[in-house]
């Protein structure tokens, strides 16, 4: 089982996210992560979906997505040639005995503290999923009050683009 990341350009209209995510539910496909946002053209949105599966499953998912009327373009992103990022906001207990360790972790992970109070620390960190996972593991002992991650966004390096947005 391998993780695939696909980029999908869809018409930016009501219900389009339900159609795409509903197709996954209906066909019994599992989603690891799904993010959506407007593109440079307000007529289109870009959905990034990550899922685990084999080559066959990937093909079936691609074919089913292509059939949706509101989908303009769908492509599997080659992971070695793609920048994949996720953002995490995580709130930790601000305890004197842990503060220095947290600061060190924040620095080493090139993240930043975006809110600081007597009892809590809010950290923002971006990176690949594995980096985010590692950071969470590291700070878990310090006491996670709450956290929120965006799921991944991804874009291929170089000239390769998901087409049609400007056409």
């Amino acid at each position: 089982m391998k993780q695939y990341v696909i980029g999908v350009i869809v018409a930016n209209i009501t219900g389009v996210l339900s159609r795409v995510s509903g197709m996954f539910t209906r066909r019994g496909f599992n989603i690891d992560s799904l993010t959506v946002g407007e593109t440079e053209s307000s007529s289109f949105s870009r959905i990034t979906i990550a899922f685990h599966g084999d080559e066959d499953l990937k093909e079936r998912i691609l074919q089913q997505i292509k059939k949706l009327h509101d989908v303009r373009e769908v492509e599997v992103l080659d992971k070695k040639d793609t920048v994949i990022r996720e953002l995490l906001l995580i709130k930790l207990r601000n305890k004197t005995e842990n503060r220095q360790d947290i600061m060190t972790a924040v620095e080493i992970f090139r993240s930043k503290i975006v809110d600081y109070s007597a009892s809590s620390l809010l950290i923002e960190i971006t990176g690949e999923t594995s980096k985010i996972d590692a950071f969470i593991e590291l700070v878990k002992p310090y006491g996670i009050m709450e956290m929120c991650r965006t799921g991944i966004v991804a874009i291929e390096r170089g000239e390769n683009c998901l087409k049609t947005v400007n056409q």
Partner: protein
Amino acid sequence: MMKISGAKTVVETLIEQGCDTVFGYPGGQVLDLFDEIYLAGDRIDFILTAHEQGAAHAADGYARATGKVGVCIATSGPGATNLVTGIATAALDSVPLVAITGNVSCGLIGRDSFQEVDIVGVTMPITKHNFIVKDVNELADTIRMAFKIAKSDRPGPVLVDIPKDVQLAYAEFTADRQPVIPYPLTLAAEEKLRKAAQMINAAKRPYVYFGGGVISGKAASQVRSFAERIDAPMGCSLMGLSAVPYDDPLFLGMQGMHGHYAASAAESEADLVIALGARFSDRATGNNERFARNFKVIHIDIDGAELMKNIPADLAIQGDIRDALERLSGMVEKSSRPKWRERIEALRAEEKKLCKRKTQTAEGMLSPQEIIGVISRAAGEDVNIVTDVGQHQMWVAQEYPLKRPRSFITSGGLGTMGFGMGATIGASKAVGRRSVLFTGDGSFGMDLNELATAVTEKIPLVVVIMNNGVLGMVRQLQTMFFDRRYSATTLGRKTDFVKLAEAFGAKGARPRNIAELEKIAGEAFAYDGPFVIDCPVDSNEFVLPMLKPNGSIDEIITEIK
């Protein structure tokens, strides 16, 4: 250009798209639309059904009989949800359908208003696409798009939900006059067809398995000439029936769970299966794991999502089936395979031995096969053959001498009991031809309300009830796998279908033997309206042969004791 109301826009656009008949049921949120239907009465025929589900099945039957887009209209809330089974039936069998529903005004949406339901949300997984139109300026183009989507590529149902205030609002209407043209068809890649031709030329025992795609893809005659050219036997799925005449020398009949032994056996002995417009449903293949172990598979279908879905094909080709077959026929060698033909004849002989045609049945009962024989002789070729779902459906699929594409109308994928009456009315309306509905007492119990519609519309229709007093198909499974514990399958009803027919204003009769059936059939086919023939059938008649769900051909069941 002039401004017209949304309600009028719907009717004008339907007429523009070539729609001559609409099936439906009125209600509060479609009052304006129905007013326009009334005003356009000379240009569009409206058929009022007894229930919205009947309207959806009627639009479906209309589409199946003609290949045109069927249209049904219902009001919001319960009207819309009553269409759901009909829409799902059309979706599973790839039938082009446009369903129009009213909804509460935009400002009332989301407030659980009276008769409000999110029908777009409800039907999302059972439509090719659906729309809610909140701006009257987009209404005409949305309906045009609905027709385009419904009939493009692999056909299917599309729903358009129109809030009441949008029906009342005015917008400029440009009469396009031209029905929309479907999206250009995907055509098979040349090199893939060449590869297919090589595989076919190298094969010793090729077998053609076709499905409903050859009917909707208008490729019925291409399939026959292709099979003849490569000298391969053919079998089909339930949806493929009627594409090829039953007596084509290369045709072995329906394959699969209740199919002809020779078809399933030929497939299992083949070294190459060429699947055309079929989707390897579990009912047609049995156990998918063991299914494709002995042969290679070439799979051609217009829908790319069907390729590699149920069966890993050795060569998967996406493309229009008719074009693909025409080009492929020019690439394959004309072959003669006497040894394979000899084996096929041996399988046919084996089928005759294994699956003896039953003419004997219990005292005072009629054998299903004999009923079909009598009806087919009385009906002639110029009829639509429609079924409901259950044992009677399988008997008809096995036995009826079907000759002409689109002459057989049945709910295959969804297996909808209660499909028949609506579909029959739609089919008869569409082609102005008499229809025969084979049904069971169980199925007919679900759709007999539409007898009222058939009487009102004077539909020439012969309803043949195979009345065994039980839900036979499920009972058969209980007989085999549940030690005859007949949970909830014995109807024990006292319904007199002859009196019931008369109460509806139709005619009815109950034959006590085959000779009486012959006489009654003669009368029924001469009658200009619905005629119900209530045939007593023994509840211990089984659909045979049978492959167990998930079974394979070597485990065929030819007898149930």
